């Protein structure tokens, strides 16, 4: 019997809530009546039903062999089960007397024979010692042994130097890869552990490749192999046990404004109306500079809409005093980034602030009082402003980025298209300093208009080819980054030939000559996969794509990148994805020699949105 052949596709439901469906009676073989129901099938109480009884997918019944996209189906289905098992195993390793994990292990588990590891001291400094454990190459395959499940924990624990009173969560196993291996599963995880050795704080990290069997559809997967590689142990060798301490409260705490800062967007977001633009995503940065010329560096903090930006001047005792209102910079507008730079070469730090409505430029009178000189509404909601004298005429020009292009993209979730190579982002702007706080848009003229349609988050200026001219690197979300070589007042897009595109969902970059070979290298912060997969169209493992394309897409969710400058105009990706590449959702990153040993280290700001609900999406 033929049903109503017509179908609505847009948001319509009939008054009785019944389904509207298009059915095409398919074929014989006694199977008539099977409808090809096209889009728009509704059932009256479906939502509430599904909410009340979320369907549990029985993993055994999904066809794991069938189709492209099957790979994602595997991840979708198995990852919660594997994660649960990993949690049990990690907790049991931390605390062997705790929960029973025999259900999580197969009777025999194959592991790397711990006796076969060779130790190599990787670093020994003033406060930290780092040792790497690995298998000599010739032993790689033969070092596997099988242990009884009851011995498994005892074999693993010693490698991690866990104290007898290790907390239950001393060991973490983070899943980041899952694939099918015949009827079994293979997973890749990163292991981290907090331990103690001889009274010193001790940390381990390693890559673990695990294999699992799935004997029945009712039982959880069981571990059959747990191979540790790249085990790195680091130890704090000096007292005090805390090298770094957060003293913001002491330094800023005597100001009423500290009350504003000690609360975050989870709170403020509830108490500021949406039309004031309290950016829930927390895109508010800072600038450091000396605003009153006393030789001490001061701090400017951008704030969400509805809260004033804060300018703190430093006093000789190190404390900081709120001078925002007197200075004239206590903007309530939603602000992202700012700069404290001398724009008129009169010896004091002027200010530029990116607010929602416009990019503002202000003149410092030398004593920390700012007067608004210019505003650029075409760069409203600008990101990561930077200053550089691109044309070497002796004054600083300003470069401001745009992320989304349309009003709906600004401040909320964007609509990038195409998703992995989005070209519908906002246009960045180079404001060329004409003197006297006048700036002209020189973007097109100087060549930075090329491909100027990306979702740009951060820019950084560096002379990457050591020719004395500052080049500029732009980190883009939803696509490749850009590198523009400064050829003297004009820029050339060398993104492709320099190998620095680092396709990904980039947030920022930082330059340093990390290997001290005389050329500046680059570290790029990106979004990391396990979270990213949640919102990516799930075709990144689509086997109908060419191998090259697939690799590119996989790279896009891999994590941060370390790009080593070859010295001849190009970069090579030397990232160890399990190490400095291993990320979370990374935002700002900064190279800095934090232990004064002459080698620049890296600190990365991680984490997207943490709220009260423990259940992470």
């Amino acid at each position, binding site marked *: 019997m033929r049903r109503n052949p017509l179908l609505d596709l*847009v*948001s319509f439901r009939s008054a009785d809530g019944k389904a509207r469906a298009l059915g095409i009676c398919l074929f014989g073989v006694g199977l008539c009546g*099977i409808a090809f129901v096209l889009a728009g099938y509704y059932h009256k109480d479906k939502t509430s039903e599904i909410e009340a009884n979320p369907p549990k997918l029985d993993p055994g019944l999904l066809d794991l062999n069938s189709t492209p996209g099957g790979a994602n189906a595997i991840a979708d289905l198995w990852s919660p089960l594997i994660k649960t098992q990993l949690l049990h195993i990690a907790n049991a390793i931390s605390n062997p007397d705790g929960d029973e994990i025999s259900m999580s292990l197969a009777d025999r588990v194959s592991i790397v024979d711990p006796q076969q590891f060779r130790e190599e001291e990787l670093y020994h400094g003033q406060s930290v010692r780092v040792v790497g454990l690995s298998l000599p190459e010739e032993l790689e395959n033969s070092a596997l042994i099988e242990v009884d499940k009851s011995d498994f924990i005892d074999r693993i624990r010693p490698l991690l130097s866990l104290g007898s009173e290790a907390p239950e969560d001393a060991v973490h196993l983070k899943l980041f890869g899952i694939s099918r291996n015949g009827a079994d599963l293979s997973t890749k995880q990163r292991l981290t552990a907090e331990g103690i050795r001889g009274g010193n704080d001790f940390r381990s990290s390693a890559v673990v490749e695990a294999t699992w069997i799935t004997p029945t559809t009712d039982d959880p997967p069981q571990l059959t192999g747990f191979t540790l590689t790249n085990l790195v142990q680091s130890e704090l060798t000096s007292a005090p046990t805390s090298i770094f301490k957060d003293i913001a409260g002491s330094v800023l705490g005597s100001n009423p404004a500290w009350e504003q800062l000690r609360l975050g967007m*989870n709170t403020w977001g509830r108490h500021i109306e949406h039309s004031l633009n309290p950016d829930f995503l927390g895109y508010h940065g800072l600038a450091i500079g000396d605003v009153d010329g006393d030789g001490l560096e001061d701090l400017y903090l951008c704030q969400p809409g509805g809260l004033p930006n804060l300018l703190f001047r430093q006093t000789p005792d190190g404390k900081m005093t709120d001078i925002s209102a007197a200075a004239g910079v206590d903007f309530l507008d939603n602000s992202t980034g700012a700069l404290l730079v001398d724009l008129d070469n*009169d010896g004091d730090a002027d200010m530029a602030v990116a607010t929602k409505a416009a990019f503002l430029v202000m003149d410092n009178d030398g004593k920390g009082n700012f007067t608004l000189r210019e505003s650029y509404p075409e760069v409203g909601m600008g990101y990561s402003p930077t200053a550089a004298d691109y044309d070497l005429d002796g004054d600083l020009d300003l470069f401001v980025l745009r992320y989304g292009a349309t009003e709906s993209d600004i401040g909320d979730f964007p609509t990038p298209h195409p998703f992995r190579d989005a070209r519908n982002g906002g246009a960045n702007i180079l404001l060329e300093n004409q003197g006297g706080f006048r700036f002209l848009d020189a973007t097109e003229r100087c060549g930075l208009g090329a491909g100027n349609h990306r979702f740009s988050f951060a*820019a950084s200026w560096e002379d990457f080819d050591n020719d004395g001219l500052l080049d500029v690197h732009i980190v883009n979300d939803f696509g490749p980054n850009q590198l523009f070589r400064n050829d003297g007042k004009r820029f050339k897009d060398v993104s492709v030939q320099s190998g620095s595109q680092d396709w990904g969902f980039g947030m920022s970059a930082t330059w340093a000559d990390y290997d001290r070979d005389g050329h500046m290298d680059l570290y790029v912060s990106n979004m990391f996969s396990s979270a990213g997969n949640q919102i990516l169209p799930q075709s990144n493992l689509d086997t109908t794509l060419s191998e090259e394309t697939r690799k590119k897409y996989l790279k896009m969710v891999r994590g941060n990148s370390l790009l080593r400058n070859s010295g001849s105009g190009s970069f090579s990706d030397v990232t160890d994805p399990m190490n400095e590449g291993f990320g979370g959702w990374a935002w700002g990153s900064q190279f800095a*020699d934090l*232990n004064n040993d*002459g080698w620049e280290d890296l600190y990365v700001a991680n984490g997207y949105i943490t709220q009260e609900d423990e259940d992470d999406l």
Partner: protein
Amino acid sequence: MFFWRRVALQSPEDDLKPTATPGYSRNFRELNDLLSRGKSFSGRERNPLFLNLKGEGFAEVGGLLGVDFPDDARAVATMDWDRDGDLDLWVTNRNAPQVRLLRNNHPAGSSSLLIRLIGNGTTTNRDAIGARLVLGQADDPEQEQIRTVHAGGGFLAQSSAVIHFGLGESANDLRLSVAWPGGKTETLSGLKSGNRYVITQGRKEFEVMPLSDPIQAPISRDEIPDTLENTVPGGLWLANRVPFPSLDYTDNTGEARTTTSSIGKPILVNLWATWCESCVRELQEFGKLDKFLQSRGATILALNVDGLALDGGALSEGTIEEILKRAGYDFPHGIASREGLAKIEMMIEFLTSRRESLTIPSSFLIDGEGYLSAIYVGEIQGKQLIKDIDLLRSPPAEQLKRATARAGRWFYNPRQIDRVAFLGDYATSFAKGGFPGESRRLSRMIKPQDGALTAKDHYNQAKAAARQGLVADAEQLYLEALRLEPEFGQALTGLGALFLVQQRVEEAENLFEKALSIDPNHATALINLAMIDQSRGQKDRALARLEKVVAKNPDYAEAHLNLGSLLASMKQLDRAIFHLSKAIAFNPKRAIAHLNLASVYMEKQLWEKAEQRYRLVRQLNPKMPYAHLGLATLQARRKLHPEAVISLRKAISLGAENAKSYTQLARSLLALGDKKGASEALLTALKIDPKYAEAQQIIKENRLLSE
């Protein structure tokens, strides 16, 4: 748990509808929705610190060094805050605390030097941004380190421009070259570790300050509670007001009333419960404000929520009247309705983008024109209420100050918004939440001087009406939108879809064709036209259209679903499998895609694959009859007739009431020896379709209707 969910009609499932926007936009909307409800996303991630192993790699030591905070960190900047020669870190966070100063206490004995550069201000900018420094041992050029002076460069961060060099061990005879941007390269020698240098372009002399007098560390505060006690004055004063929704309630005489009847004077609508101590205390406060409120022509309406509270206690002894009397409260009062509370929740969500359960007590201050001016969560202090009621009559600038918890200045006045769009969105939010009447009322309040309603406003209203099944209203509104903007693509397709359901096929077709003429790649138009083509048997035409949609929108799950289904019906089974699989890859929980794929497997006689898919559909959506039907067929094939009977009965009960399913049922019943049951089923089949050959045949073969 939210009132509005219990009250409203089922809200539209945006995420299951094909729209012209690709899958990831939908995902972003879902994400936004989940975030507004308190879910985390990539949260509690620790900040790593990668120690540079002398250029040979990195080791993560954040935990060891005490910087691995699980914050939602954003910007990182370096600065030697305490002037002790090592770099400290400023970090800003999305969550509390918004800023950290990580003071670096590396043991003394490590060595470094700091350099501040000053350009000449003529050829070279004063801040020396862009200067390249090279520092090395005079006798060992291999050990050089390079730096560039930056102004900004990380994510929203500008670090100190004072350059820092770590040196490993102390060094005495260091040589520095500075390439000044726009100027020459200058060299200085004899620099020593443990110093801070200020070097000015063109001058041979430089300032030296030993790093021997660092700031002593003050005692740090612990604990950063995330509360707002005493941080903000009570209440959220709105910069941009919205009309208060009309709440139904029962007054103290039992009459049904709405809050709109009180428009004309300021009114504080208060929600309270008898078991709530602070509520009762608050009522006492209100009682004391009798004279004041009268003098301002204002009043209070206390609505009791005892019967409606989700997680409150039971109704306490003493009726509402008694409690109010004891509290000395003499203003109007009544009993709140579920719908009213639902509307309040929706209003709060619109204003703050947060979706949470109502707190008791809550109060809402409404001005003399019926617009909401302030929201108070928790107990109000009498003093605050007095101030706020007077504030209603103050000039806008005063009121704007009250709208922010802290003082400051606005560059761009936040009240300069597109009020029509704002109020239009507000009105639409009620339609989406299941209150179309409220939505209409609010839309009508958008005054002409606010600006005329745009095509988009009408379109939004139309969509909302359509969702609620108000076909006539929707049609009017779409037509109005199109009158204002004849080429409004979404209005064209929206109205087209409306016509389709009413079987006004030709009219629908015209609209879709028009949308297509404006945008030849309009996905929704193409899909709908393909549907119409199919219904007329013009499958090739439909195919061409759907292929076009897929080509332009390779990530569009619905397009693949439609194309795959069509290909299946055209017996292009392998292609069908390809596209249906794609649809599934993009949206694995779309039961229909699995269902159709199952049918294709059946066609290809891949029985096991088909069975797996049918089982999956059954789990995803147990109410889909065709999954049960499919399984029944397979079960019958394997002679599992008892199971087949169950599946068939289930399918029939879910709506697959046709001759074929009854006949199948009959077959299985026969195989089980139930002639009576089989006869009944066959009779039913013939009742539905008297000419159904198969049923007649079975009856004949088995001599079932001898009576």
